[in-house]
């Protein structure tokens, strides 16, 4: 059997930390091979080694059965390896054509190379259905188009092996499907595809083989057809995990949060939230689905008092909020807590000690001292949460950034939930969080709902929205494009709403 890529005993060390440890991997020619693993399992590092971006500490890379020595991406490109990075490697101020040309210009002056490339692109566009406007500036095109540009970059350089790192993170379900269709066409043309993802459904849907990584090691290899989502999840985490959240029937009470006709404008005056109205009842989770950047963030921030409303009213537990003067502190005092979408920017101060991060927003509380901070109270507060939320390592004095993503998120959740909110706003509760912690966080949010609190959840992960919500609102381009019950919808239906193709009656 011919292997396009063979990795033998790859080790990679950053300082004293091993990102990859004794990794062995064989990828068959003309197949789609998935690599799954939790965040920080070492998938991206491994692929960066394969692409010559990092040098392995030790180990052997075989390409087409021959040992390869890669010192830079140039060597990988010469061996026919192409990579589409999770964060696109494009220069926004340049055109599509210039971006593809970069690095393989074919002569000192650009003119000749540009003409040839233009013809080549038209050709590839026809063969693979990869059409792009070569003269558009990359800053002006959407993420789906940008991904095409990245794939074209690899194909133009003659890639036989195409590595895609978390390619669907920024795509709608429909866009993701068309990406997978395209990958199948490429495979049938004889290309080898390596697909890195943490979304198990995609693995089952799109790949022929799958390898699982955990803590820098390759722990299992499967034929996709003979495995299951559950088996993969267990291999990723190293223990039994439950992917479904136990759900008690909802006992919805009175309306705790009402928003009427909210409008939020950005600095340029564009309406990012466009006449959005919603209500959340006690004992109910309302989920807002949508592709990132369609106004969900602004909506959440506006309700939390972080952004000014251009117009609209907010009523919290029957009390009208003065939106002109509202701010997060006042909202917290009224019982509205907020787990922000981006914990690094808004939720935590990464260079603070964990216990200091653990009181952000509540530092005025008398329990932490009147004029000077009562260190003992600050530390014991987080020490208590660390027990309840299983936050590791259990040291409140460690700096915040020395905790993993999941543990950082638990610090934020504990801070907001343990103070007994009436209404909890939660943004992307499991972004960058590993499966084990996801399970815990979901249970915690569900418990809060069962305790009769109102929860407004924003997430770009459809599975999460479907698992937790009692009601789903879909946002596209600042507007609510539809409302669904989770048991009466599916990802295709929601995907259409997310793309702004509005209700044709459910």
């Amino acid at each position, binding site marked *: 059997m011919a292997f396009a890529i063979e990795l033998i005993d790859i080790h990679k060390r*950053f*300082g004293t930390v091993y990102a990859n440890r004794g990794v062995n991997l064989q990828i068959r020619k003309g197949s789609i091979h998935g690599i799954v693993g939790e965040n920080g399992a070492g998938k991206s590092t491994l692929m960066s080694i394969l*692409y010559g*971006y*990092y*040098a392995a500490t030790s180990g052997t890379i075989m390409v087409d059965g021959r040992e390869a020595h890669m010192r*830079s*991406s*140039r060597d*990988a*490109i010469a061996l026919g390896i192409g*990579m589409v*990075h999770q964060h696109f*490697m*494009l*220069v*926004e*101020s*340049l055109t599509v054509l*210039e*971006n593809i*040309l*970069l*690095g*393989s*210009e074919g*002569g*000192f*002056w*650009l*003119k000749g*190379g540009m003409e040839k490339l233009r013809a080549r692109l038209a050709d590839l566009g026809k063969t693979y259905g990869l059409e792009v406007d070569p003269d558009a500036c990359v800053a002006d095109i959407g993420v789906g188009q940008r991904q095409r540009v990245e794939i074209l*970059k690899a194909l133009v350089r003659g890639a036989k092996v195409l590595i895609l790192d978390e390619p669907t993170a920024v795509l709608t379900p429909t866009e993701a499907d068309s990406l997978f269709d395209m990958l199948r066409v490429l495979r049938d043309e004889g290309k080898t595809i390596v697909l890195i993802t943490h979304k198990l459904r995609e693995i089952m849907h799109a790949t022929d083989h799958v390898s699982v990584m955990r803590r820098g090691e390759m722990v299992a290899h499967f034929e996709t057809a003979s495995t299951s989502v559950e088996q993969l999840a267990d291999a990723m985490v190293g223990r039994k995990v439950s992917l479904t959240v136990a759900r008690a029937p909802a006992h919805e009470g009175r309306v705790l949060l009402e928003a009427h006709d909210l409008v939020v404008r950005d600095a340029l005056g564009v309406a990012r939230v466009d006449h959005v109205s919603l209500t959340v009842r006690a004992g109910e989770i309302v989920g807002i689905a949508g592709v990132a950047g369609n106004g969900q963030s602004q909506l959440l921030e506006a309700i939390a008092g972080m952004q000014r409303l251009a117009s609209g009213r907010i009523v919290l537990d029957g009390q009208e909020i003065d939106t002109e003067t509202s701010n997060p502190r006042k909202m917290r005092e009224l019982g509205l807590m907020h787990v922000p979408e981006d914990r690094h920017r808004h939720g935590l101060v990464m260079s603070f000690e964990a216990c200091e991060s653990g009181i952000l927003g509540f530092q005025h509380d008398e329990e932490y001292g009147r004029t000077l901070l009562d260190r003992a109270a600050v530390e014991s507060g987080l020490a208590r949460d660390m027990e309840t939320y299983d936050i590791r390592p259990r040291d409140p004095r460690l700096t915040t950034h020395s905790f993993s993503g999941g543990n950082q998120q638990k610090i934020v959740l504990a801070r907001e939930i343990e103070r007994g909110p009436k209404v909890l706003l939660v943004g992307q509760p499991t972004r960058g969080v590993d499966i084990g912690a996801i399970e815990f966080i979901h249970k915690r949010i569900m418990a809060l709902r069962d305790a009769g609190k109102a929860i407004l959840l924003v997430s770009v992960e459809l599975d999460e929205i479907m698992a937790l919500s009692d009601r789903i609102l879909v946002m596209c381009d600042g507007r609510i494009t539809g409302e669904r019950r989770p048991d009466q919808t599916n990802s295709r239906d929601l995907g259409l709403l997310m793309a702004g193709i509005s209700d044709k009656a459910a």
Partner: protein
Amino acid sequence: MDFDAILIVAGSAVRLATPLLCACLAGLWSERSGIVDIGLEGKMLAAAFAGASAATATGSAMMGLGAGLGASLAMGLLHGYASIDRNGNQIVSGMAINMIAAGLTALVGAAWFGQGGRTPSLNGDARFSPLLFGLDGLTLVTILCAFFTWLFLYKSRFGLRLRAAGENPAALETAGVSVRRIRYAGVAMCGLLCGLGGTYLSVSQAAGFLPQMTAGKGFIALAALVFAKWKPIPALFTCLLFGALDAIAIRMQGISVPGIGAVPVQAIQALPYVMTVILLAGFVGRAIPPRASGIPYVKEN
């Protein structure tokens, strides 16, 4: 003002714009590659001193030019080493170069020539003389440099890579091109252009070196670079505008303005600087620098 006077002012504007344009294009090459350089001033000063010293010693203006280019290039590469290989703070490194140049030129000048830091007066072949419309070779080369900068930046492989290095170096590296090499090329171009400007100051515009003779031109060039939004042809016109302001200010010395009377000479001398501030504050609009400029590119930690 009659026609002759206008011609005189115009000629003087171009001459005054020359060192500014050199430094502005130098800054453009460096910042477009991703390296912020506030050491333009220091490199020009070093080149002015080296150029005048070599011209004095050899009696040849061309030898002066060679020495000026060499001195400035060396300082440029020093800044490159600090910023590219050592991932140092580019502002600190640039400031260090300014201070080293200011101190070293005065000290060495005093030791070599014993004239309080000045170099002896240059004349004859030791100084560049006018070739065309009262402009010398260095000025003409500088104006050509603006066009060549445009040509190379937008039409050549090197220019494309340089622009990518300043906007998103990781994209360049994954395309298989060494960011380090491109950035070194950028700072080397920067060094050569500063060398041209500095030599012009002491071997053409003036007949010898004076301590601190750059008088902030390196910083005005940085302002001009912002005003021109990091583009070569606008840089040419911005520098000509600044040169014209300077020329008019010189022309207006001692002239009595109706209703005000004789304007104090200091006020006139301040005019170009005041105008620079007004132009920058009022007309530049949104100037977005190359996205990655000033940020060390670290590939692996």
